[in-house]
Structures are given as C-alpha cells and as structure tokens.
C-alpha cells in the first residue's frame, strides 16, 4: 500500500520548510524536501558598494548572522589586502564562537528537545502530539525546566557578542581589517563572567541532557543515516591574512579523508524553481526564478562536490577533525553538536585570556587590490561560501552557498538524493501516528535554516562557482 504524506509546516526551525514523502508498506520510499521561501538575495547584493557586504549579508540569516558577517569580512580582507593583529584575530573568533554557542543551545533546547520531551500542554506547546515519549516523568520535568534555563544561557552568549559587536543579531564591529571595539579589561571581565555561567550550563545541563536522550532514544543511532560523505570548510580562522584555520577543512568519502579542492564544487537546478534564460546584456546566460517550473520542488539548488552530495555541519566538523568517532545518524548529529558546544566554550575562555587590553584592533586599507574573490568558513550548520566579482568597488555578482543548501539539496539530474532526502529514504514507520514524530526528529537533527538557504542565485550554473 502506497501513501503520499505532506509534512507541512515543519515547525521549530528558522524559515519555512515542507516535506512530501511516499510511504510504502510502512517504509519511506521517497522524500522531497521543499524550501518554500525565496528572497533573491544575490540580486539584492548587485550594484552595491562592496563594503556593504558585511552588514547586508548578515540579513540573510537571523540565527547565524555573524557567520555571514565573518565570511564577508574575510572576503573584504582579501579585496583590500588587510592585515589582522593578534587582538583582532582573538576578538573575531570570540564573537564567532559566542554566536555558535547561542545557536547550538537554542537549536538543542528550543527546536530539537520537543521531539523527545513532553512539553506542558499550554501555549506555545499545544497539540505537541509527541508519539513515542520515553523519558520518566522525573527526567521529563527536569528537561522541561532546562528548556527555560537554556533561554537564559543562550541570551548570555549573545550578551558576549553584543559587548564586542554592538548588537545581535547583525553585529556591527567585526568588519574588514579587524574589530572596531576595544578589548578593555571591563569587557573581558564581563565576558569571562558570562562565559563561566554558560560553561556551567553546558556542563551540567546540555551534556547530561544529550547523553540522556541519546541513551533513551538509542535507536536513532540507526535512523536518519546519510551515506558517509562529509565535508567541512574549516572553522576559526587565524593569522595576519586569515591563512590559518584551527579546525581543518576536509572531505570524507567513505573511509577516506582528503583535502578540500574548491574547484570541485558545482551547483545545478534540475529540481529547483529556476531556469536559465539568455541575457541580452551579457554573453553569459542568466539564471532566473521560475516558480511554476514542472518537476521542480524547492527554492534550494543542488550543490555537489566532485559530482556527489555531501553532508555538512557539526558532525562533519567533529569527525573530520577527530573529535568524534561514530556514524552519520540523526543521534550522531545531535550528539556531535553538543560535543562541539563544549569544545567551543573552552576555546573561548582561552581566547579571552589571550586578549591584551588596548585600542580597537582595526586597520582598514582603502585601495582595492582584488576584484574576484572567494571566502569560506564553516558556519553553525556547516560549509559557507561567499564569492564576489567587483568593478570599481561595486559588486557585479555575489554568490552565497549556505550549509542548508548542501544538506537540503533536491535531487540532481540523475535522481540522486541529497543528504536529508537520503537520510529519510528507507526509514521504517511502525505506525501511521508515528510518522511526523519520526520525520521531525530526523529532519531537525540537521538544524535546518531555510531563511539562509533560499535567496541565492548564480548565473551560468554549468560552470563551477569558483573562479
């Protein structure tokens, strides 16, 4: 017996996401994940001054805004050939780390936890309809309490970001050439105090809570499995020219770890709501939105590396850098995110202690030395790329490939599935009532962010995005 099921809205994530699955005799045979929002951000970026990129691209995403600000700053550092002082490098990474911790705590507790914990039956948790709830009443209540504690811990992490960045989301001081705020003793001290509270929360709540859920729901180590192809652009850039990266980039295909080669990245639009039309103004064809295109089902394009789909995110980073040994299941993803959080709070403390009180560590050069630039980093959800072509300080083309594009790629020309769709395919659905609970658990383990994923277009999709 075959049944078509529409899972929409998939709540508790950033942006709008739907999925359509075909269930045959209790097994998911096919899954189409569909991003249903489009803003055309790459068009918005055109014909603007390149120095606008840091503030403007942060508006791509609210939950990971600093990741866009960071990678746009790396890009501008190249455009102007800026040199970064030690203080600038530490401050930038402290701010980036604070946004990571904010993201991971909020994802685990506010978005993922109600997949496993029965929340109180009042707003905003009405109709939770959690099937397969397994925690004891006592454990369940403890985790509900931690949901509300998590709100405070994540807010403290944003307070650290605001101390140095002026505002959050969408900070102001992390721009090309360094950071515009002075690392003064009072700020360092306040940040250390906040970090100490956050670290306690991670140690005494987030880690044990993750362990509890991974123990009680251990069958999710066998569910939501991707084919073992993992990719990372590396995280936490250091060096005068951002030339070093603390957690390395890499590509895992099966058991083999190889180094990253950006020229192997390609995008395609077979099942995406875009089409290529000739452009009279330029020799290159022009990519345009096409919301009624037959066979298309998502605003996300398909992105591949060496012609294969790759999973990105904390799990990829942790495995590639040797911090985690395990599989590529839904529970592995949840577990790796918590491990990463605990590693990052430790790193932040070390970096705060390395800061030397002094003037704002910023020196912005004004002469443009490069007009074709590309910058990469890992963001909270995985690999993030910005590339730009300039003409007299003006942006001609700006391309962004976000982590959610990697994970939520629709099928390619040959019908190959992207990471999330392959994680869903083959999943057993023991009873009809269970379907949304199971789908929700697997899909949210990827920490989807559709706001990020859905406004990017690049022209001439047949060519590599890399110059």
């Amino acid at each position, binding site marked *: 017996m075959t049944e078509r099921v529409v*899972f*929409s*809205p*998939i*709540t*508790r994530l*950033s942006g*709008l996401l*739907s999925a359509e699955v075909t269930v045959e005799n209790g097994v998911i045979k096919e899954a189409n994940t*569909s991003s249903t*929002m*489009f*803003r*055309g951000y790459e068009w*918005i970026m*055109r014909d*603007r001054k390149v*120095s*606008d990129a840091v*503030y*403007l691209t942060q*508006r*791509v995403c*609210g939950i990971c*805004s600093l990741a866009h600000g960071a990678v746009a700053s790396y890009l501008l550092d190249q455009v102007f050939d800026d040199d970064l002082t030690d203080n600038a490098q530490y401050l930038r990474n402290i701010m980036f780390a604070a946004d990571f911790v904010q993201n991971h705590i*909020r994802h685990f507790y506010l978005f993922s936890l*109600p997949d496993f914990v029965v929340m109180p039956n*009042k*707003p*905003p*948790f*009405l*109709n939770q309809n*959690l099937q397969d709830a397994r925690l004891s009443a006592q454990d369940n209540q403890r985790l509900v309490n931690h*949901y509300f504690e998590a*709100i*405070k811990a*994540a*807010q403290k992490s944003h307070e650290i*970001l*605001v101390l*140095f*960045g*002026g*505002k*959050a989301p*969408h900070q*102001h*001081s992390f721009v090309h050439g*360094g950071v515009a*705020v002075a690392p003064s003793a009072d700020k360092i001290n306040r940040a250390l105090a906040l970090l100490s509270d956050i670290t306690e929360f991670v140690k005494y709540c987030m880690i044990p809570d993750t362990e509890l859920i991974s123990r009680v729901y251990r069958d999710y180590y066998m569910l939501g499995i991707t084919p073992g192809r993992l990719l990372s652009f590396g995280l936490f850039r250091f060096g005068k020219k951002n030339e070093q990266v603390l957690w390395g980039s890499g590509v895992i295909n099966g058991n083999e770890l190889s180094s990253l080669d950006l020229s192997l990245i390609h995008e395609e639009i077979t099942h995406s709501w875009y089409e290529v039309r000739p452009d009279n103004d330029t020799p290159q064809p022009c990519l345009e*939105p096409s*919301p009624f295109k037959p066979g298309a089902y998502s605003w996300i394009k398909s992105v591949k590396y060496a012609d294969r789909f790759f999973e990105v995110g904390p799990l990829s980073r942790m495995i590639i850098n040797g911090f985690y040994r395990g599989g590529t299941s839904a529970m592995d993803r949840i577990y790796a995110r918590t491990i990463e959080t605990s590693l990052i709070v430790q790193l932040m403390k070390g970096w705060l202690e390395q800061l030397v009180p002094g003037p*704002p560590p*910023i020196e912005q050069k004004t002469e443009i030395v490069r007009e074709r630039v590309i910058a990469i980093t890992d963001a909270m959800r995985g690999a993030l790329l910005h590339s730009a072509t300039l003409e007299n300080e003006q942006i001609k083309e700006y391309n962004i490939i976000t982590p959610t594009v990697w994970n939520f790629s629709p099928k390619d020309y040959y019908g190959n599935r992207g990471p999330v769709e392959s994680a869903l395919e083959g999943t057993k659905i023991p009873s009809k009532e269970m379907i*949304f609970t199971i*789908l*929700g658990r697997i899909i949210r383990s990827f920490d989807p*962010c559709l*706001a990020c994923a859905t406004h990017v277009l690049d022209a001439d999709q047949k060519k590599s995005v890399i110059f």
Partner: protein
Amino acid sequence: MRQEQYISLCNNWSRSPENFLSEELLPVIEQYRLETGKKLPVIWIETNDSGDNNISFLNTSSPYVGRVFQEMIDLLYSNTFMGAQGPDALRLLEYAAQQYRGQFTLVVEGAIPVKDNGIYNIIIKTKEDNLTALKAVRWLGSLAQYIVALGTCASFGGPSSARPNITGSKGVRDILDREIINVSGCPVNPDWFVGTLAHLLMYGKPKLDDLGRPTLFYGFTVHRHCQRRSYFDRQVFAEKLGDIECMFSQGCVGPRTGSDCPYRQWVQGANWPVRANTPCIGCTNKDFPDGSTPFFTPLPEKSSGNDQNPPSPRREVSP
C-alpha cells in the same frame, strides 16, 4: 497603573542610562496578571525574513521569554516556537483563528511577496493547496484584533524588498487596508516588541507615529540622544571606524532614525552600534536598507534608495 503612568514610565526609563525599562515593566505586568488573569492571544506567522526578529525576541531579559509565554501571551501559533508540527500545527492555526476571532493579535514577521500571486512564500502546504504568506495575511488580518508588523521587513518591506525586489515584497501595511502597529528594526529590539505586547495587553493600542510605530520607542531620533552628540555639535568627526568621535563622517544615519538605541542599547544594555565605534545604519527606517547604503558613506552623499527622495541630513534632524 493607568495608561498615562505607563507611558511616562516608558519614556522616563528610556531616558535614564542607569536603568532598563524591562526591569520596571516586569512587576507591572505581574501585578496586572494577578489582578485580571488575562493574557494576550497571539498568532505569529513568519513570512519573507531572516528569522532575526524571533532570535532577538529570545534576547528579552526582564521578562525572559519563558515568562512572556507564561504570564503575558498565549502564543497559539508560531513556526519557530510551537510544539505542534505538520497537520497538527495547521489545525491549531485554523482553530485559534476562529476561537479567538476578533480577540487575537496577529504578529507578522517578514515581508509579503505579492508577485505571481505570492508564490515566493508558502507558509503551509497541503495536498490540495498552498497557503501563501499573502493569503495568510489577508485571511488572518481580517480576523485579528490588532496586527503587529514585527521588524522592518514586515513594517516596510526591509531587506526582503531591497532593490531590485524581484519577488515584489511589501510590508503588511501595503497589503491590508487597516491599521498596522509597526515595530520596526533589523532586528527589532526585544524591549520594543515585548513593550508593545505589554501595552496591547494592559491598555490596548499604543500611541503611534506617522509611520504607525509606537512613539514610546521610536519617538526620538538616535541623534537626539546619542552619547556622541557633543562631538557632532562641535563638528568633531571620526576619521575611521574604531574612533571615539561622531560617526556622521562614517555614514551614520542616526539623524534621521527614530529609535531609543543610545539609552536602551542591546541585550542587557551591553552595547549599541555607535558605542561600538561604528555608524547607526538606520535599520528602523521606512527606506532601510536602500536609503542607508552605501553604509559607510556620509548621509548627504548616500546615493542608493529612492532617488526621487534622497535623504538629507537637515530635513529630519530633530532639535
């Protein structure tokens, strides 16, 4: 507490750098709840946005979001926070819209694409139909008691409608022919949003400015209350980002931006953009971002935006 006292509280506290409004609000709300047991029913839909406003909302401190849920609002639908998912969430939306008809506050977070009948933003899909943002705003907008446009995208179009705006995105006020309470900002400061909800709960509609924004938060320009105003008055300008002088030379839009950022600041009063040695980019404005770009170009020389109405530093500078 009477409405006049409440407004005076908001105004006075926003002018005092030593204190935060939200700490003063909490006991007031608590007392009101104990006296009346009433909460504000809220339906919150996310449209074309970045999700920054729901993250900023999570940064509210007194009250924390947990207390907002417990004591101030009954959040019946929210793509970001609700426990329900899939068809259960849709059923809850339909139930809440009918059950609280004429009583609920509709919060719209994001701009509304109107091109191609709104196909660029689908909130919920079913086997039969797509509920687009456009359709949802018209449907829920006809049933709500109040409509709050949360953030600059929902208020005026914001970054989602920045040129060339290929999705035809608009603010809620350009979709519906009724009064909209615009709580703009990119993102909104959580105090502006939670404070507006508190006003609706306790006193009904707040006093609005000519852009439909609560005057108690947007009534004065950033420039008026800026800590660096004395530099401006003496014409001492920063030479670069990171300097301690007036940021007008670095592109600051504070002179034509209504907001209380200089006093309220962000996340426990930790900082705000000018204090971070960078310009205010005017994110609460009707023409943000196009009227503010290039961000680091001084106000009189900014070129983009609506060219028929170029921003001038004099026109909107308040005394």
